[in-house]
């Protein structure tokens, strides 16, 4: 059967991995290619690069990093951050990405998802949604979690899937970097609303949190960053814990 995936996320800037808390306070966490290869060897199911600077002048650096990674990494690679046009997506795929994550540009130009899906297939198009809790609901934020949009996260997730996104990468801004667990209510609401796979992001502090994302949140995959980079846990022990909780996972050969 289809297994639940563990995805190692590397926030990159100027060719290096960084990780912050609540989208700020960046700390240097190493060389992306070395880390990506290490995670593949440990049994990571996928790798995500999020270019958090995402400036025009940084594009060449990112594409070069993607090219170098694709030469050595043989599990799927998703690249996000600053994907504004179909050409940006084409360039990332050409450089060696298997999927691209589109965030702010999808809110501004929803047809971008449709155009990209019809040209490259919906399996290449991930809608990345950053959501902030507002009482009983969640609001979509763009521009690295700084700009409110007035969009309801659940409605927006449904719309992204209708427009052609093949997967939803759902980040809780409240939980990002806090290590207090994924926002299970957000996750389960979105997972119930869409038929495409949902990736849980923001808040993983322990194996227990990842178990919760799958069992209670209904996620198809869980994204982890900080706790892998600083070796709070590793993918092997994480997968052992998931197996112990009867969650289907791929055990690395």
């Amino acid at each position, binding site marked *: 059967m289809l297994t639940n995936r563990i995805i190692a996320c590397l926030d990159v800037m100027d060719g290096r991995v960084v990780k912050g808390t609540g989208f700020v306070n960046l700390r240097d966490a190493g060389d992306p290619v070395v880390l990506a290869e290490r995670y593949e060897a440990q049994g990571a199911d996928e790798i995500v690069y999020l270019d958090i600077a995402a400036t025009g002048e940084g594009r060449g650096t990112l594409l070069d990093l993607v090219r170098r990674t694709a030469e050595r990494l043989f599990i799927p690679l998703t690249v996000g951050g600053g994907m504004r046009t179909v050409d940006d997506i084409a360039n990332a795929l050409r450089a060696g990405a*298997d999927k691209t994550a589109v965030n702010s540009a999808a809110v501004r130009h929803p047809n971008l998802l449709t155009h990209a899906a019809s040209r490259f297939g919906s399996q290449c198009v991930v809608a990345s949604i950053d959501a902030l809790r507002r009482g009983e609901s969640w609001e979509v934020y763009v521009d690295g979690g700084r700009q409110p949009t007035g969009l309801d996260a659940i409605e927006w997730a449904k719309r992204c899937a209708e427009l052609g996104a*093949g997967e939803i990468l759902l980040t809780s801004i409240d939980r990002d970097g806090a290590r207090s667990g994924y926002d299970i209510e957000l996750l389960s609401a979105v997972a119930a609303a869409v*038929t495409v796979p949902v990736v849980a992001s923001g808040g993983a502090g322990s194996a227990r949190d990842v178990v919760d994302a799958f069992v209670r949140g209904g996620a198809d995959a869980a994204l982890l960053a900080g706790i892998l980079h600083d070796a709070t846990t590793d993918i092997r022990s994480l997968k052992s814990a998931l197996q112990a909780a009867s969650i289907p996972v791929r055990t690395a050969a």
Partner: protein
Amino acid sequence: MTRLVIFDYGAGNLHSLAKAIAADGRNVTVETDLRVAMQADCLVLPGVGAFGAAASAMHGGQADLRAALSDGLPCLGICLGMQLLFDASEESPGRGVGLIPGKVTRLRTPKVPHMGWNDIEWRESGNGQNRASLGSAYFANAYICEPEDESPILAWTTHQDARFASMVRSANTVGVQFHPEKSSFAGRAFVNAVIEDLIECR
């Protein structure tokens, strides 16, 4: 020097595929002209893009390719590349190669696309079984191949309430619905063994 040619439909990531199948004694190139690509020792139909766009990129070369494949040209089709071996797809208009009679249909399961790592269920008495085997592999598909009869099927995969062909073979052509080039160490070993096998069988 063995010549492996990846046919480029103009869609996506061919870079990591080229790296995955590179080896000593092999020359791997990417080619946009199907008739030139058909001169290879082994033709690779890659797995990214949409059916209609890839069919257009063949510029009417489908019948010639079908003849060459029937005649024993080694060929590996990955994901969309496997789907192109069939007659037509629900995804978009356009003619497939038609090497394997049958059609490509939309996956009708609660969750689509079928995304992630899943089991390869090997058929016990599959004809032309490859030496290579693989326990699980990475999939990213919303469409599946439905051969008119089951004889070309070497392996199945199950997603929710659907069971579909995940590997087929006809003459020296193999199609895989998964992405062996994205299935880590075991996947790379598998895809390279399949290519060796196809070239040796010629």
